[in-house]
């Protein structure tokens, strides 16, 4: 036993290292999934009105955190437009413009099109911290009661939306 103990430990370690080498890097899981979304009150972009978390209850919606300085947001934008126009999925997208300037955000939306039913502005990033946002883009799936059902980190596209969001949306609508 004394002789083969080192080799046994080593084999275990080796197998583990080999496995972790092929483990795809995953994002940090959010503890907020299954919880009610945090309370917020944010001003609408370019207007004086403000919106709270209560105002978006009653329907399944997406909250998309984005910014004009964010490269990944540029990549997902076309898909967001497509998604907003998709009648069969029919899901409203609420934008939170994170740590950005209003003028830049408005220019971005007028140039690339606006997929959002409403864009809220979070210039100091306080609400983003409450949502546990650490990198844009991040997208939250909110159910009718305001519970966060899913969180996606990184750009959305047709493929990952169909795989990760659609089953939950279908479930919720059943």
């Amino acid at each position, binding site marked *: 036993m004394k002789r083969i103990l*080192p*080799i046994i430990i080593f084999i275990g370690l*080796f197998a*583990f*290292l080999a496995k972790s080498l092929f483990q795809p890097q995953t994002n940090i*899981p959010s503890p907020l999934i299954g919880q009610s979304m945090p309370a917020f009150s944010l001003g609408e972009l370019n207007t004086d009105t403000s919106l709270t978390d209560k105002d978006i209850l009653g329907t399944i919606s997406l909250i998309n955190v984005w910014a004009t300085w964010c490269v990944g947001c540029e990549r997902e934008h076309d898909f967001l437009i497509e998604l907003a126009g998709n009648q069969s999925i029919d899901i409203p997208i609420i934008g939170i413009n994170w740590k950005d300037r209003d003028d830049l955000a408005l220019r971005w939306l007028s140039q690339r099109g606006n997929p959002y039913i409403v864009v809220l502005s979070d210039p100091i990033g306080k609400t983003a911290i409450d949502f546990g946002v650490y990198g844009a883009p991040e997208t939250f799936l909110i159910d009718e009661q305001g519970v966060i059902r899913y969180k996606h980190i990184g750009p959305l596209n047709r493929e990952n939306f169909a795989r990760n969001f659609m089953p939950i949306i279908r479930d919720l609508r059943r």
Partner: protein
Amino acid sequence: MAAEFGQLFLISALAASLMQFFLGLNIISLDQTNREILITRFTSIHCLTVFLAMLCLGYSFLTDDFSVLYVALNSHTNLPVPYKVAALWGAHEGSLLLWILLLSLWGTSLAYSKKFFDHTLVLKISSLSILGLVSFGFILFIIYTSNPFERIYPFPEQGQSLNPLLQDPALAIHPPILYAGYVGLAVPFALALASLMSSNDYHWAGLARIWAINSWLFLTGGIALGSWWAYYELGWGGWWFWDPVENASLMPWLVATALVHSLIVTEKKQIFNGFSALLAIIAFSLSLLGTFLVRSGVLISVHSFASDPERGLFILMLIGFFTGGALIIYALNQKRSKPLNLNLWSRESLLLLNNVFLCSAAGLIMIGTLYPLVLELVNSEKISVGPPYFNFVILFPFIPLMLFIGVAVFSSWSGTGKKLLVNINRLALLSIVMGLITSYLILGYETPTATLGIILALWTIFTGAMPVIKNLGSQTHQLIKNLPMALAHIGLGLTVLGITVTSSYGITFDDTLGFGQSKQVGSYEFKLITIEDRAGPNFKAKVATVDIFSNNKKVGTVFPEKRTYDSAAPSMTEAGIDSNLFRDLFVALGEDLGGGVWSMHLQFKPLLRLIWLGPFIMILGGLFRLFLLKPFSREI
């Protein structure tokens, strides 16, 4: 052309290392004398060709040959020449070439060593052969996955320059020193295997000890240098972060320290042969593991190289082959040891005990480093294991370790407890009294751990120094005999003292300062005088002048900088530090908040310098052992 020559030399090195390996095997029929001559020659050819390959890469750097991908990625025409040389090992490919060069240099030092005699000749031949195989594996790795001589076409007009963080004298020499330590452990590894496969007795121990001390010296120096660099260059005044890459260097150091001590016992008492061999295998394997962790990208670290799973896989195969193979050889050749009947208070068992503590420290660091990976794999949880964890668990092996170090110094081979107690009780009392005075009266009581740390540090220093002090009047060689041990232990004690006092009594202060304004940090007052612009060779800087007062007397002026390099977007902090043996005053420039107000990071760190003075003294001890003791080496 240089790159093609480099490539050619690398392939020649591959062939030479393979020859070096085959010459050690019995499949080639040669008598031992010829075998030894040939293997020595091939070892030097192998070393020479790697060196020439390195020269070729250096030539490409000095001539700004940006058609070589590695040069294009890591150099620039306006990069100062010393940093062009440092850029040779500034990134993955080049650093691996350096790794191989150092490995072949250690191999050559073994080949030309005068320590081998007729009865150990077979050890020499087999260990050189094993070193040849190790080198072969890594040259293959470099050629297949990380060739520094790769060309690009079309090639860029200008290179991307060396990461500004690496443009620093301490960091330029840090990798060669640390790598020399890592790969130096290949020599005890090879000797242990050679011994296991041949005579399987204690003859290898004395030889392995020389190279173990050598690589221990380099590891100590490399780690200390890295920590010193992090302190003044990274900008926030920390000196150890328990980052996976730092841990990867600390684990081999701990095991190498155990190895050096275990080899003493094996050499002198001819016991623990298997344990020493196992330590030699583990020490080198941990070097390899470190290489894997740094370069495969499985862990997130501040210092990782650009990572690539293919490289990770190759290194993992090398680890599997060398460590796995070595452990199988160990298992097959392990003799049934006769019962030792050790007394707990004999030097043998105290050394054994401390070696076990050193290894468990390494084991705990490994558990902490790899645990997040395990959890992610097992149930996709993500956690962070950082300084609060390591600072806590490291106390478990280190407190008894520090306690027994002093006891072990006064113990004797096969000795018993009674005599020992008489010898140490005065020193123990002295350490406790001095420790209590220091922590209660001089510094002010902080935590029980701080007090304990100070007592144990003093205990280690006193017990380390005592054998030398006691022999001050006697003959030189009596005096000098204990000097390496004394210096190593005093060095360790000073380091522990520095760590304890700095972390318990240091003050860190983030605040804003306007021109002419001042802030009180402990008993020091920091006053911002001006901030001016300055232009460097490849950067622009804002330089602040901060005066520091103590009791209304000016004690120093520091000039922290914020640099913006031409090549890289994020700006860099160059801290302003005023230091003496007793305290460091540290100022780093934060951000311009407008209106002449800047955010600043201020620190007062008592006894911080001991953290690097300690390793320096340890290294002195090691150097004494290697060079000064030669004439007396028979008696020691």
